[in-house]
């Protein structure tokens, strides 16, 4: 197998160039998808027959929760790439994605609590889904703290990569918690194999929101990574040239 494309991906300069081209597309897509999805979901989608309008928080809750978990899987993949191929960009991605994932987890937990009060009658219960999601939040906190606590960049990268990889065990636990145990949280509405237990006028805005959240995540991640790459590579000639051109373009 030819691995050159893969190693090219690890070059900060190449990444900086390609991400600069991707960024506007992702940002525009995120704004459009989230804008349309939000208005459609919150104003035009029909209310639920049992929960009425309070079910509409699903349009924030579900995308945030999906992203929180996907982001952690991304961290684990970055961890493996960083440990096995010693790719510096993997560490950049790991450090930059962790705070976004933590925010998404927090959003999922808070919207879940707001949703839980009117439907279940309680802000919080210690059921398997909620608890494993809280553990995910603590894993994110641990990663962020670990990355900042160790001043040597290489040691910090290694430690974070190990924590990210070990913590990924939590992801299948979150995913299947509603099937393995009796929980108050309902099962998955969407599966890859079956038709969603929701009519199309309800899930279409949700799909837009999910795609929009992923585009938003991609755009924010690229922004943060580009800044981090510039910081870390500040002494190289290509960064100096890049800064010179952007300064020149402005003034």
């Amino acid at each position, binding site marked *: 197998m030819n691995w050159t494309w893969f190693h090219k991906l690890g070059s900060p300069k190449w990444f900086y160039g390609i991400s600069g081209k991707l960024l506007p597309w992702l940002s525009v897509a995120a704004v459009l998808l989230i804008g349309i999805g939000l208005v459609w979901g919150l104003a035009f989608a029909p209310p639920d027959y049992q*929960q009425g309008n309070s079910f509409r928080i699903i349009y924030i809750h579900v995308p945030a929760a999906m992203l929180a978990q996907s982001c952690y899987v991304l961290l684990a993949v970055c961890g493996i790439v960083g440990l096995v191929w010693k790719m510096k960009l993997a560490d950049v991605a790991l450090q930059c994605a962790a705070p976004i994932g933590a925010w998404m987890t927090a959003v999922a937990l808070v919207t879940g609590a707001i949703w839980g009060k009117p439907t279940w009658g309680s802000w919080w219960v210690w059921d398997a889904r909620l608890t494993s999601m809280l553990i995910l939040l603590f894993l994110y906190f641990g990663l962020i703290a670990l990355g900042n606590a160790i001043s040597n960049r290489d040691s910090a990268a290694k430690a974070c990569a190990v924590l990210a990889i070990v913590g990924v065990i939590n992801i299948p636990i979150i995913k299947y918690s509603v099937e393995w*145990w*009796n929980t*108050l949280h309902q099962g998955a509405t969407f599966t890859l194999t079956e038709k969603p237990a929701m009519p199309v006028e309800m899930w279409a805005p949700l799909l837009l929101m999910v795609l929009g959240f992923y585009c938003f995540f991609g755009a924010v991640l690229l922004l943060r990574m580009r800044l981090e790459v510039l910081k870390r590579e500040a002494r190289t000639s290509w960064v100096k040239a890049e800064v010179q051109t952007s300064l020149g373009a402005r003034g």
Partner: protein
Amino acid sequence: MNPLRRKRLLIILAILAGVGIAVGLAMSALRENINLFYTPTQIANGEAPLDTRIRAGGMVEQGSLKRSGDSLDVTFVVTDFNKAVTITYRGILPDLFREGQGIVALGKLNADGVVVADEVLAKHDEKYMPPEVTKALKDSGQSAPGANPQPAKEG
């Protein structure tokens, strides 16, 4: 892939598998404790301890809800379509509480096999539907899928 990288990858995968098995064993050992609630079958089999605060969950049986005329006392039967358990509660029930709906009640099991609840939580399922669809389904003689008597998920 060069041998060094292959070795590192294998070590990482081995560690991941090891941690996975360890967590899996711990989870299966804790399995009963992680369940949020006891099902009526478990209570009938005597698995739930007496006089300690437990949670009981299941579907509210159709036609079993009895309200007291002069207080907030309610009595209802919760079933998993196998065994049933009676629950008494004093207080305001959540909006989603209705017959045929899944609930979780927190309270003590007394010697008569009745759960005296001090908190009732409504469980809702993963199905969502506009009200017009439910009405149309009802009119055509079918019950709404969401309101179908369907056993609460068992562990």
